[in-house]
């Protein structure tokens, strides 16, 4: 057993764990961080968009040294049917600002840098160490962790669970349930390398400008899911994710979906001639507010994806992870400064602070959305995209049909596919869940 005792042990060196370890170390606490990967980032998968604001709160001058790819000046939303896309594009020169708001990053590289900041702040970071269990006393209080190293039990006043979406340790210790198939999406992703100039030409970009495409529609074959295409400096991240329960039900394969997405006529030209250098997969928490487990207990708190803090509607996760990690660390520091014990009651300060932040407020706002999209996935991901595409084609094709006839045939196709009550019902439910 490592005799040394720590103020806090952080399990995991992803976005949440790094934010927590950094914040506590900066305040002079004695922190041990454990990571199973070869280095921080070697197990982590993301799109990935980095939201600057949440990182600025931790490392104000991060732009000077963090490995950033492109700052985003354009967002494209595509609704796809098999042969077409209907798009909403927003591009603005305002995003070419001194301190841009969003960047693309490559997680393995970014996390490695983030981790170097954690070490500089004074935390002990131990990689290649898998935590196998939480150490608990006779009353169930968490007193440390057990690892797969020899004599691997280590003690601390508090354990920060930043173990990511699977939440294995929390489940094993009976602190939470395992994620349910309907509350997590499986995303598969590839990294496509192309010369810089080719990427800039294909996405219509200048210099370090970047663009992202989010796509939904028949590519997910009626399942609740989305595709994404993000431009980095010299590569394109391309992937697709759908709910695990939908994969289970339909028997679709994740790589089959990915391949079809790549072959879509709107997508294929963007990656033509690229060299693929990695294939990865990861789960994303999508259950929203109703799927959040207990956030703290005697001797422990849970942050980031492990607490299912993910906003699937806005595709935000890493910023919620960083923010919850930072807030948990601040709460722990306050409890420690008062020389109070790390009990559930005292650590509830973390929960209170998180509820006052955008993290819980945003998740609460969309609390009915996951269930709606899940129960109506056929309509939102198959029927509507096809109808909209048909309507657009009808609108732009000039073939001598009188406009009035065109309009009523468009309307008829919507009504025959979904009926009036279905259409109004969906619109109403959507508006309510969005409110």
């Amino acid at each position, binding site marked *: 057993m490592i005799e040394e005792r720590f103020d806090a042990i952080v399990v995991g060196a992803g976005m949440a764990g790094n934010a927590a370890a950094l914040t506590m170390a900066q305040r002079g606490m004695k922190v041990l961080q454990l990571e199973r990967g070869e280095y921080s980032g*070697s197990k982590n998968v993301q799109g990935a968009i980095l939201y600057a604001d949440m990182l600025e709160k931790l490392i104000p001058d991060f732009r000077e040294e963090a490995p950033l790819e492109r700052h985003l000046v354009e967002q494209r939303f595509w609704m796809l049917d098999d042969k077409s896309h209907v798009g909403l594009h927003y591009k603005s020169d305002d995003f070419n600002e001194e301190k841009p708001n969003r960047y693309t990053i*490559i997680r393995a590289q970014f996390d490695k840098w983030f981790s170097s900041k954690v070490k500089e702040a004074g935390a002990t970071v131990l*990689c290649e160490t*898998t935590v196998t269990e939480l150490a608990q006393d006779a009353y169930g209080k968490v007193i440390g962790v057990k*690892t797969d*190293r020899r004599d691997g039990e280590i003690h601390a006043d508090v354990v920060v669970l930043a173990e990511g979406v699977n939440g294995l340790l929390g489940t094993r210790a009976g602190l939470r349930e395992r994620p349910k198939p309907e509350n997590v999406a*499986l995303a598969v992703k590839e990294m496509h390398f192309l010369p810089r100039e080719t990427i800039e030409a294909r996405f219509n970009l200048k210099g370090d400008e970047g663009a992202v495409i989010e796509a939904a529609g028949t590519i997910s074959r009626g399942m609740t899911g989305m595709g994404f295409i993000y431009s980095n400096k010299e*590569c394109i991240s391309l992937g697709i994710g759908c709910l695990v329960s939908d994969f289970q039900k339909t028997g679709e394969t994740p790589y089959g979906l990915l391949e079809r997405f790549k072959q879509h006529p709107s997508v294929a030209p963007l990656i033509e001639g690229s060299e693929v250098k990695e*294939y990865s997969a990861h*789960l994303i928490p999508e259950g929203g507010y109703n799927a959040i487990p207990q956030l703290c207990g005697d001797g422990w708190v849970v942050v980031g994806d492990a607490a299912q803090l993910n906003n699937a509607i806005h595709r935000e996760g890493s910023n919620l992870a960083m923010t919850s990690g930072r807030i948990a660390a601040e709460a722990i520091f306050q409890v420690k400064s008062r020389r109070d014990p790390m009990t559930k009651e005292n650590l509830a300060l973390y929960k209170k602070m998180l509820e006052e932040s955008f993290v819980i407020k945003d998740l609460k706002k969309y609390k009915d959305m996951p269930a709606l999209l899940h129960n109506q996935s056929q309509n939102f991901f198959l029927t509507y995209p096809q109808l909209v595409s048909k309507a657009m084609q009808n609108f732009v094709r000039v073939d001598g049909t009188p406009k009035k006839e065109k309009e009523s045939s468009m309307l008829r196709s919507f009504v025959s596919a979904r009926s009036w009550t279905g259409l109004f019902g969906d619109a109403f439910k959507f508006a309510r869940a969005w409110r």
Partner: protein
Amino acid sequence: MSTEVAVRVEDKLFYNRYQVDPGRAHIKVRPHTTPSPQLKALLKACPARCYELNDSGQVEITVDGCIECGTCRVIGEASGDIEWSYPRGGYGVLFKFG
């Protein structure tokens, strides 16, 4: 696009780096004669196609290509069909980009 696309997952896994831990499979399938619906779902849902049907109709796992996503745990651990953990520290998939 409703036609099936032929995909060889092995080709995709070939891009990745792994540190294999010989003789220590981090996921195990419970011995069975007829596979449960959950086990059958894993044949399709695993993104690395680690689950295969053997000649006598049972589901088997080879963990070497596993990308540690956790999908099979979410589908098959509750029913006791599989036992799931992470590889030992430092072993398993090593993402260069992620």
